[in-house]
């Protein structure tokens, strides 16, 4: 038996080197990215692109990368296939709408690894990754309620999908810890990136008496509109302080680089496995820009909340929480499970909007 073991081990090792499908190590890798917007949009897509560059730099010359930008979600399968056939080892598709096209292409290219951001479908060679943006939204809500004079914040939202609804709910829940009567107006622009529509939404909200703006869209237009009117706003996806030096309170920063480095490393090591990853402040995929343009005590409170979420002592969706219609959602002390959050299609109490159905 003792003699058998090394032989078995050797045989296993040999068979591993002979079957390069699952565990082959490789010296170099080519990573490819699909962006829904421009790689210089100042927000979502740029955050992914900065992470791509950081990842490339991390590996020295061992990893090369390329990207395709402004890819229409409607016709993305062809784009993803073109990448798959152009020698990519791993392909990151970074918008919700790329989910089914990614899956479709992944089925045809079993040897290539696919990573889809913000979706829920996976396969043996397709992982899903996302960030708990709502953790940052909760902190934003607290800040907004602390410094708003009108007691109304405006929310420029993209599409009524769970990820966005989570953010709206977390924002109002955070605000209610400071001011139970705080009110939140929502405008849907039905686009991830449309500076014109985003700016119009900002103006409409400000005309309605909103004195804090936050956005779940990708351009810096709302920040610039807020700056022009002299009110405060939150940045999205990237630190947008340059668009509003006197305006930005903080920003939710998407820090994808550590994740990209980890996953590309796994490709190099031959240890890549499909997974569903939903990280947040604790893992560092989400970070907050410096708390600026606010009194010190508000900044201190925000930092404290951030730390509490990071250490796990605070979960933004902890009961008691009522739905918009007043019915109970979470009982005292109950914490929402991920399944519910990932399919969230209802508002909590306090949101001054009708969820588009």
């Amino acid at each position: 038996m003792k003699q058998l073991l090394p032989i078995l081990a050797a045989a296993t090792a040999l068979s591993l080197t002979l079957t390069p499908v699952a565990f082959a190590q490789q010296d170099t890798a080519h990573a490819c990215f699909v962006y829904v917007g421009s790689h210089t949009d100042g927000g979502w897509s740029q955050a992914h692109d900065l992470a791509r560059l950081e990842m490339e730099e991390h590996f020295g010359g061992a990893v090369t990368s390329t990207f395709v930008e402004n890819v229409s979600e409607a016709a993305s399968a062809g784009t993803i296939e073109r990448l798959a056939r152009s020698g990519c080892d791993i392909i990151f598709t970074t918008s919700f709408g790329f989910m089914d096209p990614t899956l479709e292409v992944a089925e045809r290219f079993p040897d290539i690894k696919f990573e889809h951001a913000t979706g829920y479908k996976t396969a043996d060679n397709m992982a899903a990754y996302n960030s708990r943006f709502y953790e940052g939204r909760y902190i934003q809500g607290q800040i907004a309620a602390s410094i708003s004079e009108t007691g109304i914040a405006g929310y420029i939202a993209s599409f009524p999908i769970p990820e966005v609804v989570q953010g709206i709910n977390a924002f109002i829940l955070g605000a209610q810890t400071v001011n139970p009567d705080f009110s939140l107006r929502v405008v849907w622009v039905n686009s991830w990136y449309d500076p014109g529509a985003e700016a119009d939404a900002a103006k409409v909200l400000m005309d309605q008496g909103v004195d804090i703006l936050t956005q779940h869209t990708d351009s810096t237009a709302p920040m610039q509109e807020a700056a022009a009117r002299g009110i405060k706003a939150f940045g999205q996806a990237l630190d947008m302080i340059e668009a509003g030096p006197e305006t930005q309170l903080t920003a939710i920063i998407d820090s994808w680089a550590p994740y990209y480095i980890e996953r590309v490393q796994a490709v190099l090591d031959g240890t890549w496995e499909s997974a569903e990853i939903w990280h947040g402040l604790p893992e560092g995929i989400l970070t907050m820009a410096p708390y600026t343009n606010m009194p010190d005590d508000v900044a201190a409170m925000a930092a404290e909340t951030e730390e509490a979420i990071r250490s796990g002592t605070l979960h933004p969706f902890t009961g008691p929480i009522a739905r918009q219609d007043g019915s109970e959602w979470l009982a005292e002390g109950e914490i929402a499970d991920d399944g519910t959050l990932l399919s969230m299609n209802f508002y909590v109490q306090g949101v001054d909007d009708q969820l588009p159905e």
Partner: protein
Amino acid sequence: MIRVELLRRDNPSRALRLLSPLIGLSLALITGAIMFSLMGKNPAAALYVYFIEPLTEAWSVHELLIKAAPLILMGAGLSICYLSNNWNIGAEGQFIMGALAGSIFPVLFTDFQNPMVLPLMFIFAVAGGALWAGIPALLKARFNTNEILVSLMLVYVAERILDYLVRGPWRNPGGMNFPESVRFHSYARVPEIMPWDGRANLGIVIAILVAIALWFMLSRTLKGFEVKVIGASPRAGRFAGFSSKGMIFFSFLVAGGCAGLAGIIEVAGASAQLRPIISPGYGFTAIIVAFLGRLNPLGAIAAGLILALTYLGGEAAQISLQISDKASRVFQGTLLLYILACDTLIHYRIRFSRKPAAKGIEQAAASSEQQPPAAERAV
């Protein structure tokens, strides 16, 4: 004030007319080469990647055909509209409504699965697109409304209806609340023509057949003659006993039906489900296709393939040369500009004049209703 006038040439050179697309293409290639070398890219490599590489592999040709099919269908249909002086620029909306009407079967009657489904989907899609196009036609024929405005505005209405359906009543119950319909079952998919090679489906065959049929109608039948006479001169058409109101309906319904068919081919082909956005602007690109094809349905086949190629080429250039998406679009725009400009300048000459010439105004006004300047407006 210096006026710029376009005056129709009496005898446009026949050779130039034939060569015009090639001249436009060459000018665009030269401009593109200059642009790419200013960006520090090898112009030869860039042009190769743009125009040749997408054609070197079978699967990529399939992708080309997938993209070209809706463009050809809609471009050919729109040609009928524009030839008859009916400015339907809402093909995008007719595309969406056709897709919705056709999707009724796989989305609402999921148990209805047999070979009858696909033909029914096609019929409903044609009807859906035609009915949607019928609205601007009716308003124009009845109340003399501006069909450009109405057809364009109805695009946004159609987009909202699609958006509403996939988020609300037609949302996939098993889809975690995400905005998408159920995936179509296999009877509701447009069959692939050579599945071992790539994804291209029957759509391209249908598109070409429809284009040929429309060409036959235009060039070989009385109806086609009527389209052209009414387009060139409604007054002459009336003398011939043709009804310009009837022509409004005919052209809009044909174009709308084509767009609806393109819509169902797109969703039942490449994507297999409804999503909030089902078209990357095919309906608007089809306007360019119609004019690039010189309002000839057979020309639309070539123009649809060329435009589809520039989309794929733009993508390939991003992937292999890191040429930005914006540069690709500038290049596309340059290409179209040159081709349309060549056509215009071969048929018209430019005159600069200082004095307000009464006759000139009339001619300029008349010529602005002719094809090429209108094309630029529509684009």
